[in-house]
């Protein structure tokens, strides 16, 4: 999986959990919280959906890695690729 594909996975999840948010022009290097009306409960949903839809575990200590799309891609892409390799 490429980093761009990984970002799309995260955007798809946000569209699922917050259908009323506009995700079309998200800036990848800006915190998601600053661009969308997301709170810690919503980040929990992103984590849960990653687990449910993709079998990816994000421990609580790593939640801050999901701050922006860029940091999501940085953190999650290796996890996706590791999983594929197994």
């Amino acid at each position: 999986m490429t980093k761009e594909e990984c970002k799309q996975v995260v955007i798809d999840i946000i569209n699922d959990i917050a259908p009323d948010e506009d995700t079309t022009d998200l800036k990848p290097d800006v915190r998601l919280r600053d661009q969308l009306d997301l709170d810690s409960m919503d980040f929990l949903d992103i984590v849960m959906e990653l687990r449910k839809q993709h079998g990816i575990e994000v421990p609580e200590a790593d939640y801050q890695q999901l701050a922006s799309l860029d940091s999501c891609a940085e953190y999650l892409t290796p996890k996706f690729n590791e999983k594929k390799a197994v």
Partner: protein
Amino acid sequence: MVRRPREDQYDFLIIGAGMAGMAAAIRLGHFGKKVLLLERHAIIGGLNSFYKQDGRKYDVGLHAVTNYVPAGTKRAPLTKLLRQLRISHADLGLSPQNVSRVAFPGHDLRFSNDFALLESEVARVFPKEIDRFRSLTEKVKSFDELDLQGPKLSARKILSEELHDPLLIDMLLCPLMYYGSAKEGDMDFYQFVIMFKALFLEGFARPFEGVRHITQLLLRRMRELPVERIMNCGVQSLRAEEGEIKEVLLENGRVVRADCILSTIGSVETAALVENDVPFLRQNDEETPRLSFVETISVFDQQPVDWGWDETIVFFNDQEEFAYEQPDNLVDPRSGVICFPNNYQYPDEKTLAEGFLRITCLANYDRWIALPEDIYKEEKARWFEEMVRSARRFLPPLADAEIEKHQVGTDMFTPRTITKYTGHLGGAVYGAPEKIRDGKTPYRNLVLAGTDQGFLGITGSMLSGISMANLHGLQSG
């Protein structure tokens, strides 16, 4: 060693299918947890249910859904709640109120879902206070009422620093206390902020079909998820060992285990279920009375608006000072809440088939419970008259004969009814005076949600179920 069959082992066991329990079940079910929801009563909804009498369906606890904001409003509790339960705003089918009022001797403050109305009313009635009221509003807006760890603060103390006129303080507290305070006399400032936002900055709405619409919606959502629900089957007891609840005994004799138990039945009520209980939550509880209420319902064969009764909710008080406390008498008719479920802006100008007048007043649980059956009926009839008479002083005048001619049904419930159907001690509607905001108990896997966690009302109890499910269920892995 005997291994327990898998079907008796759950990820989560939820006690009580009220608003809090159902919201928590949906949240957990959504993420594939194995959930068992237990309800002692035959129907769901708890304090917010409905019942049938003389062929008519009555809502128990719905005057107004608070926290109403239009679809798409950012950062609002209602928006969060819907998102977390994945229910659309349209599905909730809420219609906004007309206008409501706080009515004190010689002074009225009207408010609606547009905060500007309350602001202009304060400016009109309390011209000297308007700047201070605006700064109080700013303080409320920027206060983080959802901080579960914050210190306890007295609302009256903070209000007396922010405002000068005690009448304005009482007029603001009256509706906020009636709709969300478990405490006599004063409110926790956190709770004040929650309620100020819920009533004044946000607003009131109601689904055309009443509370059934909301409970049915939650039921449908639960059916789509791996939530097992057993009705007519309460939890009999919880067996504790080494700071943990090991086994749960159900009223039908079954024994189950769960990684986490979420109880929505109240703190002391929950403690009472724990066998071999290390004293838990009992200490200060018996000293402070729980607040209970009576409610009258009058049914008419015409719409209240035909009598000029066009407001949605009226909070009334006939005293110089507003006393929010357990009365010595069976009922305190000096203050209360009037609700006309007809007076919401329903779509296509639809109107309810009959007219309803609902009145709530503070009541004394112990006195109602002590009445023998025949006197109980007499007292109900007596206080019914008394409450309607008291409330009508605050409404456009109308001849008694006119009411008699159009009244086609009445009902009334008392603190006794509340305890009978929901198990809450002392007929409490808002639970114990002291709240446990983080939901923790001395048992590692037993968590409180709903009434005694501290978020009250319909919206509040659902948010409580959601946040406790998140905090103790989903976040901790």
